[in-house]
């Protein structure tokens, strides 16, 4: 993994570490419930204390996502959201000053053109990509493009990853390595799998400088627990649910703010 100076995301994670805490990474899908509200939602979680924003590019076949994010993304697509809306949203959210990563399945990037997407993402102020269905073995074009445009590339590791694959993924990643806490898809879970801690340790031993944990983290207590051993805590479904279940966009933003504040307190060791 390359050094913090070339990666805005790594710099942010390191800044949190300097405060003696883990970073909070918050996921929201672009265009849900509509493009403007999604931008407001991202600003809301930044104000609440999220350190890095992860914007999901809505995709028709999200195989790594559970029911909550699937429902939100389906609604975004039904509302007519396009790839260029993701770039616009990145630009608006990057203006808050936090690193903005785009979480995207691979085909939309392929279709856009890998280098063209990297160029336009960088121009919009984006920090890089999280790629749930792209493993480093298949990522040649993206490795080249992300180097050319100075973007972070966050690959995933899972409890099933072998030591060799942990090392391969750690080497290929820039920003941080995304450790999937459990074998499964995104969703709200009542507990964070104990194997997450071991995966973080193994991934560090394999050479990763920064490891953030995602999948199923939903409460301030869980965030505090994961913050105890990881460099960052990634939350998604619980944020999306706040928007999904609210009767109006305004009520959704208010609820989202409260949920994000709770999680931000969690990573600061101040779980309610």
């Amino acid at each position, binding site marked *: 993994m390359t050094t913090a100076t070339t990666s805005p995301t790594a710099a942010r994670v390191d800044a949190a570490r300097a405060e003696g805490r883990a970073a909070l990474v918050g996921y929201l899908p672009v265009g849900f419930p509509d493009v403007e509200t999604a931008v407001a939602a991202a600003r809301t979680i930044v104000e609440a204390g999220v350190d890095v924003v992860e914007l999901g590019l809505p995709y028709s076949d999200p*195989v*790594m996502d*559970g029911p909550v994010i699937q429902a939100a993304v389906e609604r975004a697509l039904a509302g007519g959201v*396009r790839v260029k809306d993701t770039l616009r949203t990145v630009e608006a959210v990057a203006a808050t000053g936090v690193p903005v990563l785009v979480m995207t399945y691979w085909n*939309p990037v*392929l279709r856009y053109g890998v280098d063209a997407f990297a160029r336009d993402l960088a121009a919009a102020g984006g920090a890089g990509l999280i790629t749930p269905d792209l*493993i480093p073995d298949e990522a040649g074009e993206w490795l080249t493009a992300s180097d050319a445009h100075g973007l972070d590339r966050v690959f995933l590791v*899972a*409890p099933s*990853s072998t030591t060799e694959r942990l090392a391969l993924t750690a080497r290929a990643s820039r920003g941080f390595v995304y450790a999937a806490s459990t074998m499964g898809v995104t969703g709200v879970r009542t507990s964070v799998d104990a194997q997450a801690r071991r995966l973080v340790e193994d991934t560090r031993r394999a050479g990763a400088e920064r490891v953030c944990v995602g999948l199923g983290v939903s409460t301030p207590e869980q965030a505090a627990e994961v913050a105890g051993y990881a460099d960052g805590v990634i939350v998604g479904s619980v944020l999306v649910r706040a928007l999904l279940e609210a009767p109006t966009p305004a009520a959704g933003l208010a609820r989202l703010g409260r949920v994000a504040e709770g999680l931000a307190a969690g990573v600061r060791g101040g779980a309610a």
Partner: protein
Amino acid sequence: MTSPPPGGFAAAAGAGPYFGDFGGRFVPEALIAALDELEAAYEKARHDPEFAAELARLHRTYTGRPSIITEVPRFARHCGNARVLLKREDLNHTGSHKINNVLGQALLTKRIGKTRVIAETGAGQHGVATATAAALFDLECVVYMGEEDTRRQALNVARMRLLGAEVVPVRTGSRTLKDAINEALRDWVTNVATTNYVFGTVAGPHPFPAMVRDFQRIIGEEARAQVLEITGALPDVVAACVGGGSNAIGIFHAFLDDPVRLVGLEAGGEGVATGRHAATITGGAPGVLHGARSYLLQDADGQTIESHSISAGLDYPGVGPEHAWLASTGRVEYRPVTDAAAMEAFLLLSRTEGIIPAIESAHALAGAIELGREAADAGRRDTILVNLSGRGDKDVATAARWFGLLDEGEL
């Protein structure tokens, strides 16, 4: 056609993970260990005479192999008087070619020591075959099926449940095969420690395209020898329908390095120009879906476009990567067949030969009609081998609606 690769097409196709620019593994990291495990088990099995003997025994005593060849002269009169031979995969146990693949994968599941299998299904034929093998091998079985397809193919839902499988209707996205695959992949990511994914076609991440092809290759190996024996020569043309592409690759492979024309018939739905079709190679573009780089139906943003076909088994916006490669080399031609042309062929085979084909296979029959007539126009009488991939029992309700075969009170 570009000139054949040194050593021929069959050798160049190889064991994956890539077929030219196509194939690979575009899946979550969490699945890589399972795919590696499956690949290793398959590699071992592939070179193990005991595995081959066990599969051959099952095919002889359970599937009913070798499947026969039937010459269909009355049907052939409508094909420009071509000579038409059908490879009768419809006579296999469970009624289609899907069992060839499923028995191989079920044996592998046992070897890996997993106790649960999952599958996706469109027409229900792969689901029925998987449920059948699960009953035979005492495996727990869950089949994902788009809600839309559970309605179109209700008979097969009941068959799967009779066989002891759990059928899960999938209500996301377009509620068809593509969404059933998404849901099966989510299940697999979650339950991979106990579960093997018995994939139904030559699409998906490596090793599925190569492995499923190898299990289906028996169709072409048998048919090549049978046609040589019956006619004293190789066929001029081999025709097969292409959904994901397993029955087509299965019959094509034995002929890849022969001077034989190979034609894959895609589901043209209401016509490729209408946008309501499932002709992935004819009307799609390269991209990634369900774990492999291949052709797919997609919009300008790379979102998958819903496919349309009267045939649930062909109603899929993707296609196996080896077909994408064979198309790019020009070795295999791909053509669309409309719903209407397929249904006409469906009725014609039923009326002229007393064989009710699957609507999927009727696309290949419609291709034979077209190819035979083109040959006649050019002054030739071709021998056309058609892969009759399945039987039409499951499609009787659809046909009754299409042709208005039942009166109000009989519906």
